[in-house]
């Protein structure tokens, strides 16, 4: 298996080509936009929340296949999930979904969605374990 095939596994390309939950929500209950300062990529996530559950979630913005695939996978996973449970999703969970190993620079792409989600759900002030998500 050559180098790029280790990163661009079929599941990633699949999510990249056919992203789930892509789009925006009108009048979302929570919306948060973050950027990857290293490359300027931007991700926005909109949430509809009912009875403490994430009823709907949509993402938009632009980014590379890793950041788009991880946003797509994360959204797919958290739609319908209780807010409190979504908050506990960790960096390791996201990397496991992606199923690849990444260096510190591309890690930022992979974790942009998680970071955007947490900032949205917790509010801006920071959250437990945030440092590890750098």
């Amino acid at each position, binding site marked *: 298996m050559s180098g790029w095939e280790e990163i661009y596994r079929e599941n990633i390309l699949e999510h990249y080509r056919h992203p789930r939950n892509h789009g925006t929500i009108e009048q979302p209950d929570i919306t948060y936009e973050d950027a990857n300062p290293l*490359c*300027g990529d931007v991700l926005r996530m909109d949430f509809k929340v009912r009875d403490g559950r994430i009823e709907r979630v949509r993402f938009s913005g632009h*980014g*590379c296949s890793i950041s788009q695939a991880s946003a797509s996978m994360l959204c797919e996973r958290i739609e319908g999930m209780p807010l409190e449970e979504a908050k506990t999703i960790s960096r390791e969970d996201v990397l496991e979904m992606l199923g690849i190993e990444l260096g510190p620079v*591309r890690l930022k792409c992979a974790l942009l969605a998680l970071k955007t989600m947490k900032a949205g759900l917790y509010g801006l002030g920071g959250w437990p374990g945030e440092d590890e998500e750098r």
Partner: protein
Amino acid sequence: MSHVMRGQPGGAAPAALPRTFDPAVVRADFPLLRRPQGKPFAYLDSAATSQKPESVLAAMDHHYRHCNANIHRGIYAMAEEATAAYEDSRRRVAQLVNARSPREIVFTRNSTEALNLVAHAYGRWALQPGDAVVLTEMEHHSNLVPWQMLAREKGLELRFVPMTGSGELDLDALPGLLADGRAKLVGVVHISNVLGTVNPAAEIARLAHAAGAVVVLDASQSVPHCPVDVRALGCDFMAFTGHKMLGPTGIGVLWARRELLEAMPPFLGGGEMIREVHLTESKWNELPWKFEAGTMPIAEAVGLGAAVDYLERLGLDAVFAHDRALAAYAIERLREIPDLTVLGPAADRRGGVVAFTLADIHPHDIATVLDAEGVAVRAGHHCAMPLHEKLGIPASTRASFHCYSLEAEVDAMIAGLRRARSIFAR
């Protein structure tokens, strides 16, 4: 490579043809590029940082092993040697850019600090509310953000020389931006780190001076690659950075006209930059030390001096000819790839930097595929977000060259781009 035009960004045309060198031979001087057989590695990211020749590493290592002492104050032999080596590097840098005196050379951490020094020490002192600062749409963040911060603090207006579709400055717009006499400072990048565009610094300086503005040249991509003569250019401040010119990280340079440096207040306060300190007031040291606070990057200055020597041995005109020839070759080969757009002007108007987009494939993905093939390029906004905004793209992929770069490395990139296209076509 004989079809390449000579570029003389720095001043008058020289009499002789440029010396030439064989990059494959030059390469042997660069330890990092000597890779084990069978592991191809094409480093096409020299605009981000250059590789370092053995002589630079040896100079720094020698410093630490044989004359590591703090400078300017030590009375013992080793401190005298370290001081002499540090000041000798300053002299060599002064000669490289044809400064009138080594006093006009201030060492900094990098280009960015040099440009911030100008904004803080000159800008905060000389500019008044209502004054305007003229920049260009192709500035690197380092020659943009300090002026934004100053503009907010002092109530300055920022104006921008627009960029044409081909990625050149629309110089016809400059007189209009200067016409009301409120523009007191013009900041411009000498060679764009994205487009490779060589901007007409001397002409800009002429227009700016006629309108009573000083000129700050961001020479981060020119001094490492071509002859630059501050007197011929006629600018007032010029910043460049060691790590892009075969030297170490941790050191940069501000050149400025002596009269300006004499008149300006200092920037950072502390040891070295003082003549006399009392509890509540101090007197400043002479130039250039007035602007060098605390223990400076001593080993790094020694390394930079060795880098200047190396560049001068190669000949900066030859380096530039080589870079430009390679850029022309790359542009030619990139044309073979469908859906690929090269940013910036024609090959004869640029330095050794080639940025492009490929269909709607994200540059990160392109760079990752290329990395897997052993080709290192840069992907992103290259610290020039407004330029990308203007071009209507979020990011680009960039290949950039230095004296050790080879056509074969460009070929490897082309092969990798074909592969990226096949993976990501959707």
